């Protein structure tokens, strides 16, 4: 017999926490000090002017930049107009992300020079076809909620690969996309492409189908390209991710708290500038903070510090009421192996359990230089597993099941009970790729390793028949924008080595 309860529901989702509220406040108020006293360097005159008009102190102006100092009141003012919720909806108007506190979404990373060939397993430069294939994987995998270009298109013309990447993604998925842009021209083209895909600017205003990735440079620097993208996005109602990528010990203090303070300072400047330009401009701040490996000097994507910093930053953004750009599903391994699965599992679990919003970089290997279809498919299963943990253990009378135990009694079994039949599918997580057969059955079914099964699933998705997601006419119209861009850029040489030595 259960004691009568009051009308009270407990949040049953498990919580992982790395900072107390006092610690969050310390980090936030420290960031305000850095913003006011140390300042940030802005390499764009328009950006400096906007900040100055909004109340910033501008000094130490050189030929190409100024030091901009933001008094705390400007941050308060900016936060008062910053949307606490940002929505991005796919062109099918079904797949959507509603980014606010504790809403967990996973998606790919972007712009890797290399990819692992889904058939041969060879590491090579990414092509249009690869980017399209990754989008098709994203479309097929239920735990991938948004997508990014898992590869730089390197078989198309110069300096226009961003448009081709977007086209390839539109061909493969109707989920929300987080785009990158080579420059303002590239951003403008992609916005035009989105308008065509959606049927006009008014449709865009009802729910944008992409957000833009913008990355200020650590420490405390905001380039012309970054500021121009920010202002353009604010003007055109494009939600954007403003995410510095500080490297603890190299481009930020080696202490994780110091790195968090610096990253927050960098993001807060973006918030202030965007809100002065257009109060209400939708933003997501992040999100990729890690340490430099002190032996190899690489940027770690699989380190515990990355997971820990992302978790801490999520808690800070929840306290601030700003949607968060998290990082997980990635690894420093060179191929999809035990290390990749282990690192991805740790950072996926951490990101989800802390309640990160827009969790990107699923499918990244080799410090973000290579994309892996296998890691993406495996991550889908890892995320599924973690989502089961997120559902927790409800303790209603029906869950506690006393009458069920009473009816079965000592020594009986529950396999045939209605309670089992009705609830087992919801209660007990069923893997798709993880193997739980006993040895004999496993041997009978071909003695396949997890890697074998993941590989088969990748090919199964890619080899399945696909209905085109766009009508021919629409596709041609969107593609025309890419071709016109190629025409404008045809005389520029593209040095592929700028993406990394092949």
């Amino acid at each position, binding site marked *: 017999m259960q004691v009568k309860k009051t009308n009270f529901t407990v949040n049953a989702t498990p919580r992982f926490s790395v900072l107390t509220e006092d610690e969050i406040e310390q980090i936030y108020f420290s960031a305000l000090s850095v913003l006011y006293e140390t300042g940030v360097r802005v390499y764009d005159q328009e950006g400096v002017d906007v900040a100055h008009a909004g109340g910033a102190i501008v000094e130490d102006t050189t030929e190409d930049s100024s030091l901009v100092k933001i008094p705390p009141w400007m941050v308060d003012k900016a936060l008062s107009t910053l949307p606490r919720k940002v929505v991005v909806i796919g062109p099918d108007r079904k797949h959507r992300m509603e980014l606010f506190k504790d809403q967990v979404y996973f998606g790919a990373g972007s712009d890797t020079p290399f990819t692992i060939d889904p058939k041969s397993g060879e590491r090579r430069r990414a092509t249009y076809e690869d980017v399209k294939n990754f989008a098709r994987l994203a479309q097929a995998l239920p735990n991938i909620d948004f997508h990014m270009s898992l590869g730089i298109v390197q078989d198309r013309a110069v300096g226009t690969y961003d448009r081709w990447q977007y086209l390839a993604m539109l061909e493969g998925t109707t989920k929300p996309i987080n785009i990158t842009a080579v420059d303002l021209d590239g951003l403008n083209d992609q916005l035009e492409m989105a308008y065509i895909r959606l049927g006009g600017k008014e449709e865009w205003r009802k729910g944008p189908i992409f957000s833009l990735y913008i990355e200020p440079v650590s420490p405390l620097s905001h380039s012309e390209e970054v500021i121009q993208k920010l202002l353009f996005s604010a003007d055109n109602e494009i939600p954007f991710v403003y995410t510095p990528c500080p490297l603890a010990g190299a481009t930020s203090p080696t202490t994780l708290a110091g790195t968090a303070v610096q990253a927050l300072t960098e993001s807060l400047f973006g918030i202030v500038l965007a809100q002065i330009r257009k109060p209400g401009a939708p933003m997501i701040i992040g999100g990729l903070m890690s340490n430099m490996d002190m032996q190899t000097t690489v940027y770690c994507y699989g380190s515990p510090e990355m997971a820990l910093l992302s978790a801490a930053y999520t808690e800070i953004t929840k306290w601030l009421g700003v949607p968060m750009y998290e990082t997980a599903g990635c690894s420093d391994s060179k191929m999809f192996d035990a290390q990749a699965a282990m690192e991805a599992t740790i950072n996926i679990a951490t990101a989800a359990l802390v309640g990160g919003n827009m969790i990107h970089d699923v499918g990244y290997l080799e410090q973000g230089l290579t994309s892996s279809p296998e890691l993406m498919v495996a991550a889908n299963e890892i995320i599924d597993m973690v989502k089961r943990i997120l559902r927790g253990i409800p303790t209603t009378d029906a869950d506690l099941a006393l009458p069920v135990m009473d009816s079965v009694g000592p020594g009986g*079994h529950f*396999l*045939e009970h209605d309670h089992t039949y009705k609830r*087992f599918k919801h209660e007990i997580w069923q893997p798709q790729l993880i193997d739980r057969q006993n040895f004999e*059955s496993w041997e009978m079914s071909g003695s396949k390793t997890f890697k074998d099964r993941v590989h088969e699933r990748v090919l199964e998705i890619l080899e399945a028949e696909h209905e085109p997601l766009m009508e021919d006419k629409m596709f041609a119209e969107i593609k025309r924008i890419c071709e016109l861009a190629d025409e404008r850029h045809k005389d520029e040489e593209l040095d592929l080595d700028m993406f990394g030595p092949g």
Partner: protein
Amino acid sequence: MSETLSKLSTAVIEGDLEVMEDLTSQALDEGKEAQEVLNEGLMPGMDHVGVEFKAGNMFVPEVLRSARAMQASMSILRPLLTESGVELAGKVLLGTVKGDLHDIGKNLVAMMCEGAGFEVKDLGKDVEPDVFVEGVRDFGPDVLGMSALLTTTMRAMEHTIKSIEEAGLRDQVKILIGGAPVTQSFADQIGADGYASNAASAADLAKKLISA
């Protein structure tokens, strides 16, 4: 195929216990023979369940629900089948061996065998070799299935087989063993006729041993 029989198949697949008895009576009222109801109504349903289960699309509680649905129909059909002298799939005697109280695996085998159409008698758990011997003598099973979860109780399987041999009953019954620590080589070593690594394959193997 008759609409009623096809409804019976669907009801077995969906584990729809409520409608089984009515549908079975209806099929008989329509003039179908009991064997026809079994072979063209129930068995196609169970076969489908078996295929879906092996493919990973159906799960144990659902298979058991289907088996129960089939049993509900069989309670009407069995007397009629016996009357007309039809051979049923066969009889299976089961038990967890002496010293072992683990019986969930053995219970699963029982339910799977029932689903496959066997008449099943379950001796329970912690069963003495003598009780198995009596069971073989009195029930006359085609197959005896023994289960053990513990490495310490596996040996009781060997003792039980010896007792059955000593009672002169060994050639009347096929002996199947199973349980987490049990292997094919252990089965060979103690002179069992077969080993199954899970409940579904135990039912399959029982069928195979009988038809062999």
